[in-house]
């Protein structure tokens, strides 16, 4: 084992947790959309709905956990490199925000905010609409309206998930560029 200081071991730990969280987010979203989604379509609709609900409920915990962990470990890595400061934009880079590194870092944080907003939209707005049950006393028109609302919510969840995959891959591209000074 190399003779590293505690700071270096902590940096390795933060990097590991950061990378695993990104993997859970990107790989999880891609698997949910392109592996579990088509597999779900191979069973009867009633069972597919139960499966979709179970997998989405569980996956949303992973989404929030990984988003939180990415932010926390990202900040801890900046702190470890003495790049966190107490005033806007709360981090300093060798060349400040005018440098590519700082601008790329700021863009990554802003895109993280977009992912968090999209996650909140799915969790607190679209998922409850998808889970609503059809009452026995409902008229045919009400049942049809409720079903249309569910279909619309499912379409929006799919659109947002695909947008999130693209954004997360863009963040990964920016992250990869940081080792060479940034992208923007």
């Amino acid at each position: 084992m190399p003779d590293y200081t505690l700071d270096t071991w902590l940096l390795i730990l933060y990097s590991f947790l950061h990378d695993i969280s990104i993997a859970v987010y990107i790989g999880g979203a891609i698997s949910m959309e392109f592996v579990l989604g088509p597999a779900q379509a191979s069973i009867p609709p009633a069972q597919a709905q139960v499966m979709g609900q179970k997998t989405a409920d569980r996956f949303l915990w992973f989404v929030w956990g990984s988003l939180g962990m990415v932010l926390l470990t990202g900040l801890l890595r900046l702190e470890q490199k003495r790049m966190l400061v107490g005033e806007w934009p709360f981090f300093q880079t060798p060349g400040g925000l005018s440098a590519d590194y700082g601008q790329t870092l700021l863009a990554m944080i802003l895109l993280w905010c977009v992912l968090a907003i999209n996650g909140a939209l799915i969790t607190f707005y679209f998922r409850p609409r998808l889970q609503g049950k059809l009452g026995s006393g409902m008229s045919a028109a009400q049942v049809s309206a409720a079903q249309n609302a569910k279909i619309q919510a499912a379409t929006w969840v799919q659109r947002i998930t695909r947008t999130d995959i693209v954004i997360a891959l863009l963040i990964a591209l920016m992250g990869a560029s940081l080792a060479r000074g940034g992208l923007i």
Partner: protein
Amino acid sequence: MDTLLGWLHTAAWATYVGGALTMEWVLRYAQREMPGSQVGVVCKNAGMRYRWLALGCLAVIGISGGWMVLRLDDAELLAREGAPALSLGDAYGRTLLLLAVAWVLLVATVAFMAFVLHPAQRKRSKPEMTKEEVAAERERVGRAIARMDRALKFELVLSVVSVGLGASLHAGGLI
């Protein structure tokens, strides 16, 4: 070019490891409350898709990783923190070698699952089979499922350890 290779490598690792974790902790969890017959259908469908996705990702990881190592030069390594060296006398070189071994093991495991264990799980029952033959067939499929389970756990642990090894390269290696 280096940024593009780094991104491809990261995205492929993320897709592969995140997919493996999702299959284990999301799909398995959902399967607990599904009827047995439908678990089989979902497993077959999702398993097949995931295996091809995993093999594709591992191919991208191997090509991009190998290419990045070929593009490394002494001047770039010297500029990095701790000035790592691409030799077995240095933690960086040893960690890279271990990562390459882990990659070979992962490719072998995923290929074994895709081409041996997955087909072995299919039940081959014929109307003319005796009760003993049906029981033996069930036992064979049960053993194949148990082997697949062990292979999946091995793959999951090895892939997560590999991410740790890769993360340690920023600091100069782990072993």
